[in-house]
């Protein structure tokens, strides 16, 4: 047990001698004893109950994801009791008069029955769909938190990779679920999927025929997607989430830097009772918010779309938002990317936005920790998070990637932007095509500048203290604003970070003038290192603070403006 008391008032130390166990405690002990005799779990469970978790709202994003997944799993099981995954042909005779007598698949009919004829069925369906949305969004936001705080660094690279796979699987799982009801919208989604599967070089048409058991749409795709949606993908998801959690316990949670927090400790609340109540309660809050959303806001009103028919389509045919970026990419790609030669066709206009985009985007994401570690040459364990401003280049890379994603995401809504904003869909598409290339560059530069100026601001604060708003007149007629020194805890928040320098490029030759075999790679690495670290604002050192106080407040004088003169007339105030 490594929980130690801290400081003068830590509770663990204050407990003193334990009182004799109460009758209730004895009773619990008896039941537990029965289990412990058979499992030996008392020790590890006690260890877990004493585990300490740091407290921060951004650490709850992963919990939102996990809890939403649990809600989706629960409601998904309910839905399987009524849903019929079959393309079999039936006539609708249910309660919804808008489709009375229409011919449709059993899948669509059973979805309508869940919505209109099963008490509370619509609520469960909407909870299922909304919780899936929350799941994917929370995984994405959680990944952003991990990225911008550098929590993916050693020893947590494996968990980052698992998380990346989870995000991809979550999107696939969502897409499969969206496709199951066999309404006009979901059928259009599958149609586009068939289109991009066909665009795979050489094997495309075979792949499509294998997936659909013949010509599109066929009768096989719904049962096949169903088993993927209810068994295959969820099983992998749950397994990976379990692995993810085990690794969190093994590596312990990261924490934000701050007074008392070091790379060698975890400061927070023990599982029992605080964290158990908070995290347990949070499950109900997440479930409650999802239930409230589902009670008040319709999602995917399948009855409005009508049954799928490959000859029909509706305006505003879009995938759910999490696949929006891929759909947007398809909208932005120009037609000239399709090539025909020697009797073969290569449809890059389709393939680049789908079967290339997904693996490349998620591959780059998964590989990032290793790329950054290679550039920095950093092999230390990191348990203290970075403030995003203190790693300007990484933060800028992240914002550039998010911008790229957002451009594609917005492109998927170009038709609705056109009608809601009174613009031309063609103009929007052209602008977004340009922004796809320009946006990330601008975002990179702007973000980096913002980070650097925030760091400078931190330096100013650390060196000169807080602006008090008091204007002080000196005997010789100068004015300056008095600065109040900051306390040591605030100071620590401002200075506790690393600002690595770029790697020095060695000559690439050893003492005898023999070229090192890794010279080229080293050169590349040094260039990347410059890219990462040449703009750096080092943390303030005690020496600098002392010097700043010695210098006086010359350059903060608000009158005169002649810096040199002011700077020399130093020791006016503040000491």
């Amino acid at each position, binding site marked *: 047990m490594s929980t*130690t008391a*801290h*400081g003068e*008032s*830590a509770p663990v130390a204050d407990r003193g001698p334990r009182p004799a166990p109460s009758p209730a405690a004895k009773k619990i002990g008896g039941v537990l004893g029965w289990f412990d005799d058979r499992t030996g779990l008392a020790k590890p469970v006690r260890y877990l109950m004493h585990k*300490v978790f740091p407290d921060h709202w951004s650490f709850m994003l992963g919990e939102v994801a996990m809890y939403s997944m649990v809600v989706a799993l629960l409601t998904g099981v309910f839905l399987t009791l009524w849903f019929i995954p079959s393309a079999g042909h039936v006539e609708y005779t249910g309660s919804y008069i808008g489709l009375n007598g229409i011919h449709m698949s059993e899948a669509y009919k059973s979805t309508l029955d869940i919505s209109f004829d099963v*008490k509370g069925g*619509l*609520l469960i369906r909407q909870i299922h769909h909304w919780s899936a949305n929350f799941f994917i969004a929370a995984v994405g936001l959680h990944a952003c938190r991990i990225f911008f705080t550098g929590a993916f660094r050693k020893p947590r690279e494996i968990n980052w990779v698992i998380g990346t796979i989870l995000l991809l699987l979550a999107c696939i799982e969502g897409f499969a679920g969206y496709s199951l009801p066999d309404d006009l919208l979901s059928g259009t989604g599958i*149609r586009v999927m068939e289109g991009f599967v066909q665009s795979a*070089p050489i094997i495309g*048409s*075979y792949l*499509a025929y*294998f*997936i659909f*058991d*013949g*010509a*599109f*749409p066929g009768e096989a795709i719904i049962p096949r997607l169903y088993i993927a949606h209810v068994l295959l993908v969820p099983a992998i998801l749950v397994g990976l989430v379990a692995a993810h959690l085990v690794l969190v316990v093994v590596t312990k949670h990261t924490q934000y830097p701050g*007074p*008392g927090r070091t790379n060698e400790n*975890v400061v*927070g609340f*023990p599982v029992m009772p605080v964290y158990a109540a*908070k995290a*347990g*309660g949070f499950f*109900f809050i997440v*479930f*409650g918010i999802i*239930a*409230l959303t589902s009670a*008040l806001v319709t999602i995917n009103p399948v009855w409005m779309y009508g049954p799928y028919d*490959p000859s*029909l*389509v509706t305006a505003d*045919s879009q995938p759910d938002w999490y696949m929006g970026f891929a*759909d947007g990419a*398809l*909208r*932005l790609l120009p037609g000239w990317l399709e090539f025909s030669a020697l*009797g*073969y*066709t290569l449809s890059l206009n*389709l393939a680049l936005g789908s079967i290339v985009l997904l693996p490349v985007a998620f591959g780059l994401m998964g590989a990032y920790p290793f790329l950054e570690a290679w550039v920095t*040459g950093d092999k230390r*364990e990191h348990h203290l998070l970075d403030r995003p401003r203190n790693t300007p280049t990484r933060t800028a890379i992240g914002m550039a990637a998010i911008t790229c994603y957002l451009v594609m995401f917005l492109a998927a809504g170009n*038709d609705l932007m056109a009608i809601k904003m009174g613009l031309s869909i*063609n103009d929007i598409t052209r602008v977004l095509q340009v922004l796809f290339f320009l946006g990330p560059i601008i975002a990179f530069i702007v973000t980096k500048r913002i980070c650097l100026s925030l760091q*400078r601001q931190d330096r100013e604060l650390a060196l000169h203290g807080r602006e008090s708003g008091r204007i002080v007149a000196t005997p010789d007629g100068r004015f300056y604003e008095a600065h109040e020194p900051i306390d040591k*805890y605030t100071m620590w928040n401002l200075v506790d970070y690393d600002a690595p320098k770029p790697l*020095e490029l060695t000559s690439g030759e050893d003492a005898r003038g023999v070229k090192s075999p890794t010279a080229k790679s080293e050169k590349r690495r040094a260039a990347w*290192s410059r890219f990462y670290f040449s703009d750096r*604002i080092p943390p303030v*050192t*005690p*020496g600098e603070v002392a010097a700043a106080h010695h210098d006086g407040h010359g*350059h903060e004088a608000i009158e005169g403006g002649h810096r040199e003169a002011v700077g020399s007339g130093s020791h006016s105030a503040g000491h």
Partner: protein
Amino acid sequence: MNDNDNRPAHGHESPSGGTAVSLEHGHVAGSGNVPDRFENPGLPPHQPRHADVDPKAAKRAERQVLALFTLSILGTLGFVIAYFAIDIEAMTFFPFFGHVSVLHVLLGVTMALSLLGIGLGAVHWAKTLMPDHESIEERHPIHAAPADREGFVDTLADGGEKAQLGRRPMIGVLGGTALGLFAVPPLLQVLGGLGPVPGSQLAETFWKGGMRLVRDPEMTPIRADEVTLGSVFHVLPEGIDGETVHGRPDSETRNDEDLGVLERKAKAVVLLMRLDPSQFQSQKARDWGYQGIVAYNKICTHAGCPVGLYEQQTHHLLCPCHQSTFDVTQDCKVIFGPAKRPLPQLKITVDDEGYLVSTQGFMEPVGPSYWERS
């Protein structure tokens, strides 16, 4: 393996000498015995909460927690009552929401209350009444002790030795090969059974010469004089709703007669429009039509959505999925968007009774591109 030595660029600023400080910030470090870095000041002193110092506040917090738990119980009761008391077909009007199902909304709201009551109550309890002193847990290196690691490697090597892999290498080679291959039978079974090979099916449609054009969904034939200027008809080949001829498609399947109705429709659906014949810029488009009536396949050559949006003044066809735009006056050439190929045209004429008929099937594969499509 916290090997801090092999990170040359990660040293901190050295205070020795005046050069250690970046000059851009205009300050010079003083000399003397100033430390290199600030010291971690340790946890700030604990700030007690209202509930810690004021028994009234603690009582208030307790009452709030109790109220939230009560709310949860009431929510659960409400759910049960609503479930049995309210008819599934009852609808009611709420401003801003429109007509909503009473049962759905009540079930959802009571369920949310039941859940939020527990959640908010438990968290509020933890925040206000449970101890909020922070605990510190020390971290330990994640990796095993070097001895354990060596022991692990030794055990592995020893196992290999005892299994006589070194002395009888062929066991390892063949055993490994067998292991690598054992997945082939199940994989072959599943991949082989997934579906038929496409054959030439992607290049065919249900259309043949002499088929009447019929309205979707009424399935009634169309006379040429019924297609007035500016009209658009959504058209299928006559007989497309007929029975599947050979049942389940297999590798022998060459003909769309062997497919189901939806599979036939997915390729055969056609859009019929009438323009002033002088507006066609392509002689072929004019010739393949009948007095300005032209028929084009409706399946987008990009990803396969039906291109149904016909603007009768500009004669543009727009795909709602990815906005590929085709110009009917230019033989459905792509003028915007991600599609490359024009929509294939169906050659039509009229039969003896004045009904529109196809003179031949499509002369090229319809729909999205694929590798072996010429």
